[in-house]
């Protein structure tokens, strides 16, 4: 479930703490320091020794330092500069065939050993209600290794002043282009994660993510109408270089829209957003009915996320998420039949934790399994799910696919979505050529509203920009568009996919799952794709 706003931006939860700060501050400098690896290894060994001594048959330890910086601006003002740090240790054990978990922010050896013993105690207490002991797929210990997101420029090392000036410049450009209001934000995340397990792994990882969302509003005071156009940049597993806005990363799209590949021109997009937000105020309302939809990757990412990524999480399929996120229509019998047609034969969808620049890219997951890539849907047929170590045996697999993640040292790791992406088409095809072949359609760019049922059948999606297509040509911008789908019918209506030249990654920072809720960041790549005969509704209403 995609969180509806930045509910979990900081774990602080105190309103007063979202207050402005600035400059090359001490706290910002501390964002680039690190905990010594030798110390982390010593603490991990302390925890594992204590857990084993109390009867654990398995133990893994995650020592995490989670650093976040959020810069928030509106128009000519800095609203917030927030630096947060969260450091601690989470210890997971198996005792009597049952999981137990405990965490502490105290990194003293005694506290760590105490937490390890507490985890064993919890496991033993819960084992009374256990019906099936945990079965872990084997993982070979990798010894002492490290992995880092290949960033060119660590965003946390860039002076805050420089970053703020850039955001204020973006805002000024949007206002100059006629925007009524503009917000621009820069999120920077660094997860320094150390994992150790009784399988013999000591893995030190340094993960970086960046996201620069903008919201540009246009208001017509006379009519009382307002419209917003959000930025088309993506959250990425990259450094500050993502904001370079390189020419070779821009792609000219139908309707005069610019798409962004591996870097983002925030200023240019803000200017376009200001103009398009004003155009939206005057755009005619869509006539509801069946249309052929041409969906840009900046839009399609969320449709893939909701209608493919989530239903193919094995824990949901099995019922572990039934109380909150729900179950899945993509049941094991469909997979076992080996001929369940999830999508048309043009569609191959892969899960990939190795994808460069993606949010889900890691060297190893949060139970020490190396990153992998595998097919979920092959030529339209459901072929696989996403699993972690204690689920692999259910699919008859002898290994985990490396989908385990916890959003904090204090959260229990569990199965989370890998990057799930649509493979580009094999025939040469550009978005312009795709539009040219559509008689009665709508071209949709950017992510808008989204909602899907608890088994992932019925979904509704909006977007940022909607263009009417008549007889192969874009005729005008339209508004009030949302389409409703039933997942298998929608994916079976996919009749064309542009080639790899159009392939772009989008993603989300705030995919929510679990109780207590955890967020995770995940990417979805795609080229522009066409879906025939999709039901479009008109969302305009009147309050009288």
């Amino acid at each position, binding site marked *: 479930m995609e969180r509806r706003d930045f509910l979990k931006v900081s774990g602080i939860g105190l309103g007063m703490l979202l207050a402005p700060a600035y400059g090359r501050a001490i706290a910002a400098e501390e964002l680039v320091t690190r905990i010594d690896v030798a110390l982390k290894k010593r603490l991990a060994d302390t925890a594992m020794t204590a857990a084993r001594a109390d009867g654990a048959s398995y133990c893994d330890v995650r020592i995490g330092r989670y650093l976040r910086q959020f810069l928030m601006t509106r128009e000519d*003002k800095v609203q917030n500069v927030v630096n947060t740090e969260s450091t601690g240790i989470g210890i997971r054990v198996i005792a009597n065939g049952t999981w137990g978990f405990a965490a502490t922010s105290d990194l003293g050896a005694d506290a760590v050993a105490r937490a390890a013993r507490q985890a064993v105690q919890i496991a033993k207490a819960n084992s009374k*209600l256990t019906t099936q002991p945990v079965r872990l797929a084997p993982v070979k210990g990798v010894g002492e290794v490290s992995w880092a997101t290949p960033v060119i420029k660590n965003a946390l090392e860039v002076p805050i002043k420089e970053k703020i000036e850039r955001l204020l410049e973006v805002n000024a450009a949007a206002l100059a282009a006629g925007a009524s209001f503009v917000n621009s934000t820069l999120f920077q995340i660094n997860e320094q994660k150390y994992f150790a397990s009784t399988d013999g792994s000591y893995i030190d990882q340094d993960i970086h993510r960046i996201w620069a969302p903008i919201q540009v509003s246009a208001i017509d*005071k006379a009519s009382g109408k307002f419209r917003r156009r959000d930025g088309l940049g993506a959250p990425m597993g990259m450094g500050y270089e993502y904001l370079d806005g390189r020419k070779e990363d821009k792609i000219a799209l139908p309707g005069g829209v610019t798409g962004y590949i591996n870097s983002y021109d925030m200023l240019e997009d803000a200017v376009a957003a200001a103009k398009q937000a004003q155009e939206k105020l005057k755009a005619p309302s869509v006539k509801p009915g069946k249309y052929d939809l041409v969906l840009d990757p900046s839009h399609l990412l969320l449709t893939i996320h909701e209608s493919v990524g989530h239903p193919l999480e094995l824990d949901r399929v099995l019922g572990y998420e039934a109380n909150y996120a729900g179950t899945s229509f993509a049941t094991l019998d469909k997979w076992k039949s080996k001929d369940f047609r999830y999508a048309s034969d043009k569609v191959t969808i892969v899960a990939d934790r190795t994808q460069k620049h993606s949010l889900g890219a890691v060297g190893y997951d949060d139970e020490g399994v190396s990153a992998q890539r595998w097919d979920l849907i092959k030529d339209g047929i459901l072929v696989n799910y996403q699993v972690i170590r204690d689920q692999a045996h259910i699919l008859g697999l002898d290994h985990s696919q490396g989908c385990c993640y916890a959003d904090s040292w204090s959260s229990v790791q569990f199965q989370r979505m890998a990057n799930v992406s649509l493979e580009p088409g094999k025939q040469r095809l550009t978005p312009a050529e795709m539009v040219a072949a559509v008689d009665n359609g709508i071209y949709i760019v950017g992510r808008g509203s989204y909602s899907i049922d608890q088994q992932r059948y019925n979904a509704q999606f909006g977007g940022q920009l909607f263009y009417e297509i008549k007889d192969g040509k874009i005729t005008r911008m339209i508004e*009030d568009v949302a389409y409703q789908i039933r997942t298998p019918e929608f994916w079976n209506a996919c009749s064309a996919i542009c080639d790899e030249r159009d392939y772009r990654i989008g993603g989300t920072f705030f995919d929510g799952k679990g109780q207590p*809720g955890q967020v995770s960041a995940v990417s979805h790549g795609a080229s522009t794709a066409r879906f025939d005969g999709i039901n479009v509704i008109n969302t305009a209403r009147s309050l009288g």
Partner: protein
Amino acid sequence: MSIYSEQDAKAILDKVIKLSKADECTATLSGSVDGNIRYALNAVSTSGIVSDAELGVQVAFGKRVGTATINEFDDKSLEKVVRRAEELAKLAPENPEFVPAIGKQTYAKSKTWFEKTAAITPEYRASVAADSIGPSKAAKCVAAGFLSDSARFSAIANSNGNFAYQTSTNVDFTCTVRTEDGTGSGWVARNLADIEQFNAKDEIKVAVQKATASRDAKALEPGKYTVIMEPAASAGLISFMMFGFDARQADEGRSFLSKKGGGNKLGEKMFDERVTIYADPVDPVAAVLPWDNEGQARERTPVITKGKVEYMQYSRYWAKLKEKKASGQPGNLIMVGGDKSTMDLVKSTKKGILVTRTWYIRMVDPQTVLLTGLTRDGTFYIENGEIKYPIKNFRFNESPVIMLNNIEEIGKPVRVGDDESPFVMMIPPLKIRDFTFTSLSDAV
């Protein structure tokens, strides 16, 4: 141990305020012990306890503000966090929207602490799981549920002499019960401050009954229907609407409460005259802390009275600019109702649909607060005052503003929680006419 006494909390905050050399200093200290148990497939999946405490310090030199936090409270750490906030403030640009720290406030005492809730043990949590799983198994059903409980203390102080301390407890329980064959699903939810008001065995009966009664659902055509919304079903829509009550947003022209030509709709009748919603920190069932995030005292505040908008949320900056009185922002929402239960509303319904739960509610158009979402875990067709048969779930596209204009009948409010809402709510079951369902869902 994260629940500090008032004396201990005050001693820490006093030290912080004294340490600060800035023009003003505000500090908050809070801590909690959170426990939970989660179960699925009729077995416990995870359970845990997290104990944490945090001190936040905000200082200002003129209009320059700095903030820092720490979770250690020895003298050296207190000195460190104050100096860090001060150094940040000195480096900060002037904030044109700076408003000085609040003056000394008078706070009401609300009953937010219940000893029995704070004393919940791992064994009690396990018994709630067992009391959910046992009856579910017996009825050939599968339970998946979550119980979370918390005990918390919150303390605030500033250099104007303001100080407050209060403890609070909360329990949230949800359980989804599905038939073994996956053709039926039911749900029950309780949100409370006092665990003594909770009995898992009683609650689970509702979910098991709905699961077994919702098997083999029939499909109805999407369209406009009279609906009976159980309190938890409409809470998500009503609380979503509250985002539009921000005065600045409305004055800027980007809320459903914006007025054509400028300004906001404060004082205008926007809803059916039977709609009255207020906030009250000392409500006996839905008590909340008597101060908001900025430390302003919360008072009983009419939000909507007989359909008229009586409240817009002014930040202290916006209030000053617009020459309005800034007041504490509500922590709860209490909708006034009558005495009828959900089933009483069903009895008076000729044709309609009973909605147990709504799911994945998202904004489609903020201009009209058009929301989309789905029904889930117990949707039934009503005819001549009786539940006739289960029906397939629907997707709705409806605005709570329109919904609260199409009221037929209002029942007795009950306390509900919503994981996506910042409010503790008292919401009655509602009978609404012409509620818009736009498509069918095959999801069970």
